[in-house]
């Protein structure tokens, strides 16, 4: 990658804070000025609401009885964490996340290799693969729902008559995973494809000359060199899968023990109208996502995307 040229020739060495030239000071001010609107908006739509969610989660706040709102400390968290609904949703979410990300990694790698090595039709394949990525999740979910509904669907027709997979817990979870995998594998494949492009062809050729088999070249050369790209793709997809909502909402509405934590939060808010409990669930999901991100970055050493550029 080409090294960036310094933006201005007059810019002082970073760290020379006392002796800032007029030009550098102006540049600083311009930088802050240009970033300010984006920062203000991002804080207003995320930091403030999440702070407010923490505040709400410490209240008894039921929209059906607004007069009875009062501070209750951590009792909402106690109620959520001691309920079977939360734990069932939590394990279901974790299961869907783990299985779909694992399947996507394998499938996505295969797709990426096909696109990387294809002799012809690369453009067509890349275009086709973007369609699942771009299509509205709700639309795709309806397509799957109709496909698996007895009488309407071509896929349900393959099953013994009377089977309605969407009304049974494990088959339904399997179909939710299928819908999720179909929709998001292309994203994984494209990130991995970009990673493949960074593997130098000469290194692979050298390994071939040394007598490495195709599998050895893949496992011992390609994968280690792609590790950063793989980890970033996994991090993105894991966080994304943990937030799963649209597919489940359309396919089962969370019935028959298929609800994710997001569905549970939604139900508590909009069916039960309980803002206190709903907010406690929101905060818990936020913490879960934070833990996953932290684990990826600290334990597996996934570079946070953009980390290198900030290191400059």
């Amino acid at each position, binding site marked *: 990658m080409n090294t960036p040229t310094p*933006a201005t020739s007059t810019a002082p060495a970073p760290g020379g804070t006392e002796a800032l030239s007029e030009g550098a000071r102006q540049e600083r001010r311009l930088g802050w000025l240009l970033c300010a609107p*984006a920062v203000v908006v991002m804080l207003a739509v995320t930091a403030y609401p999440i702070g407010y969610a923490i505040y709400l989660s410490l209240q008894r706040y039921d929209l059906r009885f607004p007069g009875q709102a009062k501070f209750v400390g951590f009792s909402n968290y106690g109620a959520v964490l001691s309920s079977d609904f939360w734990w069932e949703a939590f394990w279901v979410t974790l299961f869907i996340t783990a299985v779909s990300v694992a399947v996507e990694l394998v499938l996505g790698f295969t797709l990426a290799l096909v696109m990387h090595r294809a002799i012809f039709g690369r453009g*067509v394949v890349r275009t086709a693969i973007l369609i699942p990525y771009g299509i509205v999740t709700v*639309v795709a979910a309806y397509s799957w729902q109709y496909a698996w509904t007895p009488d309407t669907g071509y896929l349900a027709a393959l099953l013994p008559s009377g089977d309605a997979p969407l009304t049974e817990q494990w088959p339904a979870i399997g179909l939710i995973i299928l819908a999720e995998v179909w929709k998001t594998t292309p*994203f994984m494949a494209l990130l991995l494809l970009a990673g493949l492009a960074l593997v130098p062809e000469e290194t692979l050729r050298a390994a071939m000359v040394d007598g490495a088999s195709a599998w050895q070249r893949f496992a011992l050369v390609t994968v280690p060199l792609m590790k950063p790209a793989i980890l970033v793709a996994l991090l993105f997809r894991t966080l994304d899968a943990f937030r799963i909502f649209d597919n489940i909402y359309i396919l089962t509405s969370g019935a028959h023990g298929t609800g994710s934590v997001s569905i549970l939060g*939604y139900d508590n808010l909009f069916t039960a109208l309980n803002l206190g409990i709903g907010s406690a669930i929101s905060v818990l999901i936020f913490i879960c996502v934070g833990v996953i991100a932290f684990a990826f970055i600290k334990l597996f050493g996934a570079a946070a995307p*953009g980390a290198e550029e900030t290191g400059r």
Partner: protein
Amino acid sequence: MASAGKRHITGWAIANTVVIAYALFPVWWIAALSFKEPSTLTDGNFIPEKWTLDNYRGIFDTSEFTRALINSIGIALIATVIAVVLGTMAAYAVARLRFPGKKLLIGMSLLIAMFPPISLVSPLFNIERILGIFDTWPGLIIPYMTFSLPLAIYTLSAFFREIPWDLEKAAKVDGATPAQAFRLVIAPLAAPGVFTTAILVFIFCWNDFLFAISLTSTTAARTVPAAIAFFTGSSQFQQPTGSIAAAAVVITIPIIVFVLLFQRRIVAGLTSGAVKG
């Protein structure tokens, strides 16, 4: 040798076909449903026996769908424009200027990109009710900034880093005014990146379902993905399958058009920010 080459080509043709079939068949299935007559809706065929446009006529007859379509287009466009303008300013600063706090900005947008939307829904629901923007366009445009701004800042700063900014200086040395240098040299180089980012942001906003069903209650601001989920049949004994399929096809068309026209750029945009670092 020739036959080995031929086998090779056949192999790739099969691989390509499998990939394309994988990508397209759910789309094909819902499109087929949308063209079926009510009597053949349940036959499970991939090709409608009798083609009809009644499902499309049906959805455009009601204001529910057209209203949702207008909401979708308007809200996604406005959110995209705001995100791209603010994102361009910030990304330019990140790519080109030296100032303390750059790292913090990137870190912050990364953090926000990972935010679970459901965590924002409960506070936003209450804040918007208090502010009186619940169930209005701004009520959706503002939350859409949560994912579109970080996305815009990322992809744009990746694009901007590739621009040879020295060209601007060279143009000025050659006698161009700063405005000319920007208009004739930098703007044409930056435009494709800005445009790509706009498409990606638009796809994200167009796709949103959770905010759209949580922060709207009437047709005033409900977008198509949310409206579809509330479709009812023309009588209580009728499933709205045909209408849902037709509406689904209508909102899929813009995405397919974008993908077909800008395939290369979308791929570049998706991968540049994330993998090149």
